[in-house]
């Protein structure tokens, strides 16, 4: 079996994030990491490999700038077998539609039985790339899985929807995305870190994928950012200390003053 895991390199969520003058997300001057939510996808792939009776290969795929290699490396350290890094000047500023186009073209070269994604990227957090990828690859989509069972080619998941919890079933090849409820991602071991250095990482350009530069990047986007504004910092509120049981009364006084009671 072959599993492709799509991972994204994102600015560290705990760091300040901002916009560049060209209205794209500023990733310069901010430490990047493997999107935490994609660690769950890597972990799920490794678990499936460990449970499989056949030889299973886990290939990590990312679309992003030079630094995005760090996201592949971390995944290899966790135990994945190989990486594919699509990087190209033209990619800068790609939206979800273009990103899914690039990923789909790269995945098509892989002949994967399973394509795994995270539930959302921690920077853009649109949660649409997996569905778009499934659409482009004509694969069954089994997304937002909080629990995954694989039996042969049958994949069964629990999906916690807004109004109901659903059980979804489909047959591989398919696309699966997992939530942060699905597992507990492992930390790279020392052995894993050493082994990762020797694992192959293939680099591909847009042309290698048979795509044109005009199909990707900011200029290809079907939406335009008209403007952005930093939200005014919230004006400092009142903070009282609960002494002798006065806190509750003051709180209720505030709520009543704001007409919440």
């Amino acid at each position: 079996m072959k599993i492709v895991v799509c991972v994204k390199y994102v600015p560290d969520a705990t760091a300040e994030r901002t916009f560049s003058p060209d209205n794209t997300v500023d990733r310069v001057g901010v430490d990047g990491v493997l999107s935490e939510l994609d660690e769950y996808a890597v972990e799920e792939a490794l678990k499936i490999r460990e449970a499989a009776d056949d030889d299973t290969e886990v290939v990590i795929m990312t679309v992003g700038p030079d630094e995005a290699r760090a996201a592949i490396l971390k995944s290899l350290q966790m135990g994945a077998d190989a990486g594919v890094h699509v990087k190209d000047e033209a990619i800068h500023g790609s939206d979800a539609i273009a990103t899914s186009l690039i990923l789909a073209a790269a995945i098509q070269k892989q002949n994967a039985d399973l394509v795994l994604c995270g539930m959302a990227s921690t920077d853009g957090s649109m949660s649409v790339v997996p569905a778009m990828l499934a659409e482009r690859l004509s694969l069954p989509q089994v997304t937002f899985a909080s629990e995954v069972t694989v039996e042969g080619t049958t994949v069964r998941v629990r999906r916690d929807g807004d109004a109901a919890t659903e059980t979804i079933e489909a047959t591989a090849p398919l696309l699966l995305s997992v939530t942060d409820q699905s597992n507990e991602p492992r930390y790279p071991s020392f052995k894993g870190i050493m082994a990762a250095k020797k694992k192959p990482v293939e680099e591909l350009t847009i042309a290698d994928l048979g795509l044109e530069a005009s199909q990707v990047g900011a200029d290809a986007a079907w939406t335009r950012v008209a403007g952005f504004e930093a939200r005014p910092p919230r004006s400092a509120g009142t903070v009282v200390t609960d002494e002798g049981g006065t806190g509750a009364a003051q709180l209720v006084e505030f709520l009543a003053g704001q007409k919440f009671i």
Partner: protein
Amino acid sequence: MTEVLVLVDHVDGSVRKTTAELLTLARRLGAPSAVFIGSEIDGARDALKQYGAEKVYVLDSSDLTDYLVVPKAEALAQLVEAKQPAAVLIPSNAEGKEIAGRLAIKTDSGLITDAVDLQAGDTGPITTQSVFAGSFTVTAHVIQGTPIITVKPNAVTPEAVDGAAVEEVFEATVSDAAKTAKVTERKPREATGRPELTEAAIVVSGGRGTGGNFAPVEDFADSLGAAVGASRAAVDSGWYPHSYQVGQTGKTVSPQLYIATGISGAIQHRAGMQTSKTIVAVNKDEEAPIFELVDFGVVGDLHAVLPKATEAVKARKA
């Protein structure tokens, strides 16, 4: 006036508040047409009319509801093709965004997700989004195809306007390829008697500071008629179900009033509540980052403050 399609969010025909909000926003752009997928239109008709739906397309086929996401995206693509709407508005929940993503690709259209506001512009709808854990707002518009926009709950106060609500049965064709991920079981969430978390005007949340005892949080919420939320620490500890988690990997809420109790205010939690109008916190650590956000804060033990506050609220209401 051109039509604006609104995908109706409902549970067994009971229309959710987000639909009234979407219909209200749709009216800024054109004539709202509700798209109802399911067999329970009888339960939904009045609500759709009441919030101004001029047309109601009824798509009733088990093919559309027995499989995940894909058949609904196919059906909407066929409606877009047939009706040439000015825009398609879809609720910003997990399924809604997936439907929207596929619809964008099927119809070669631009997609904007998680809009918190929407205005008519010269070149089509102009959306407002809140990004980076609420620290920036972005305005954007679609420049290709039919604007497909997912809208977050509480984006607007629903306005009741009587619509014609002319019903039309729409027969969508669902391909075999769309019937691959089957919903084999569906367990509706247990009713709590409290307002739905994402729709509530007031949310009271509890975190690790509850020590696992959510009773004071629930009692306070009930005194205010509020929904109950939880931090991931509380959910991971098994104290409260995941469906009540607020934050990056839980629900995004934007109520009039958000009360965080025993919650430190980590960035991932903020991502789910930062756009709340008024924020209140009860935390025994005066250094807790949540206090940076609050309009009103109490430094104290929630187990002491909340029961007293509950009594005081009840006394005022009595």
